[in-house]
């Protein structure tokens, strides 16, 4: 089997993945703490790749830490910082070290991050990166040359089910599937009815869908996401619910909301799993899973 994550996807069980952000700098303590806390509770952990175009410790470094600590990494790779040579080389390196799950992303503009004057690369896009993974697996590179030893991956991509307009995103989603994506981790969803609509459409494809869950930590944070994060729409009743939480209880309410949504997605079998993004509060993932009444992944 390519990876334990692939095995979990194929088993038909309800999948739980989460995010771990490598640090800004060399202090790996908190990252190690999060990995240690979560490695036996989730099916895999995504290592973000200079998230929001903020320069950090590399995602491959985080993925190797997860491997070394006995967890299952999903290597996030964006097309923002590397051309096709560097992306292919890093895929070969990842596979050589047992990092065999990859999430292919286009990447945010460098203008959103902390190196605004840098050059954004975008030699490939997310769908072309998925295709590149599949090409390497066939023993060839994007230049058409034979490889001496080829990698194997479980490759995924993302989609935004609440984007507006939606159809251009769905066209891109279908291209990612055509390119060979096996799983999708969605942008955060808060409207279960819209998620159901998306799942009804996506069931025609052979692909596993993990619904994105971002932990709400306060009403201002929810409003900030509505204003600034593409395709994220926290409905007003949820904002009201969190703003009515007792003083100091907003995070507990956020955990309750996330848990409730995951529980519904799980119990109604709406999609194949969830991808929990706790954004800096990774230590709360076990509490979210407990609120959702999910058992920790049997390892």
């Amino acid at each position: 089997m390519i990876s334990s994550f692939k095995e979990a996807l194929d088993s038909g069980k309800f999948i739980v993945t989460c995010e771990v952000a490598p640090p800004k700098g060399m202090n790996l303590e908190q990252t190690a703490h999060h990995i240690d806390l979560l490695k036996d509770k989730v099916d895999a952990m995504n290592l973000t790749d200079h998230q929001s175009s903020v320069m950090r410790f590399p995602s491959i470094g985080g993925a190797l830490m997860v491997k070394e600590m006995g967890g299952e990494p999903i290597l996030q790779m964006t097309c923002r910082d590397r051309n096709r040579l560097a992306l292919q080389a890093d895929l070969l390196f990842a596979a050589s070290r047992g990092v065999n799950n990859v999430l292919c992303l286009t990447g945010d503009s460098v203008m959103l991050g902390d190196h605004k004057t840098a050059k954004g690369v975008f030699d490939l896009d997310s769908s072309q990166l998925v295709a590149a993974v599949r090409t390497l697996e066939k023993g060839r590179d994007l230049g058409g040359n034979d490889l001496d030893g080829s990698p194997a991956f479980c490759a995924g991509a993302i989609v935004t089910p609440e984007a507006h307009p939606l159809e251009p995103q769905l066209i891109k989603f279908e291209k990612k599937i055509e390119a060979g994506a096996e799983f999708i981790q969605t942008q955060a969803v808060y409207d279960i009815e819209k998620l159901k609509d998306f799942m009804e459409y996506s069931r025609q494809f052979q692909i596993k869908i993990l619904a994105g869950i971002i932990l709400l930590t306060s009403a201002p944070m929810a409003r900030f996401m509505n204003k600034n994060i593409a395709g994220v729409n926290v409905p007003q009743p949820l904002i009201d619910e969190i703003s009515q939480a007792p003083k100091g209880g907003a995070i507990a309410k956020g955990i309750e909301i996330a848990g409730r949504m995951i529980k519904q997605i799980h119990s109604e079998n709406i999609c194949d799993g969830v991808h929990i993004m706790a954004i800096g509060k990774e230590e709360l993932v076990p509490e979210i899973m407990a609120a959702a009444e999910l058992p920790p992944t049997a390892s």
Partner: protein
Amino acid sequence: MIRSITKQKTEEEIFRLLEGQDRIFIIGCGTCVTLTHTGGAPEVEAMKETLLESGKLVTGQIVVPVACDNLTSEILQEELGRIEQADALLIMTCAYGVQTVSGQLKRMVVPALDTLFIGKESASGQFNEVCTQCGTCVIGETGGICPVTTCHKGLINGPCGGTNQGKCEIDSNKDCAWTLIYNRLSELGQLASMRKLQGPRNFLGEPTPGKYEMSKS
């Protein structure tokens, strides 16, 4: 009509480039930079005043009709006396003009402008780039809207996840190229061409530096 779109450098940068060079000859251009008000007669005059105020000596000034034209050489010959009195030429044209002049006169040239792109005036005082001369034109499949230019990331397979309500992630006033393309192809009943998975772009179409020789045959 397409124009070279320019923006004046900061005075701070211009004076840094002119450091130690006290006698200046100023050259403007009657074409693109006149339209963009960055290097026409009024701007050249204003620059002269600025230089004089800072204690520089202006040996002369001229606004040539088309700085990038090879005829510029002949026009400048008539000013040679005043040009030769100068330590440096401050050139208020696009980089095509600056480099045309620098190849013709043995004088240090200092660009007063930054050249932004080759673009069109879409509304009064508003200029847009519609083509980056990539050499592998894709607009036959995108309803005549160039994603290589109009999409901030130059994506050719559809929008990224940063597009929001039809706008770009870098600027909520900038239309998302792929929403424009989607709308146009929908209107034309040609969405099928957006569904085609495009392979990686061929950057050989865009040689660096650009060079092309017309075949003699």
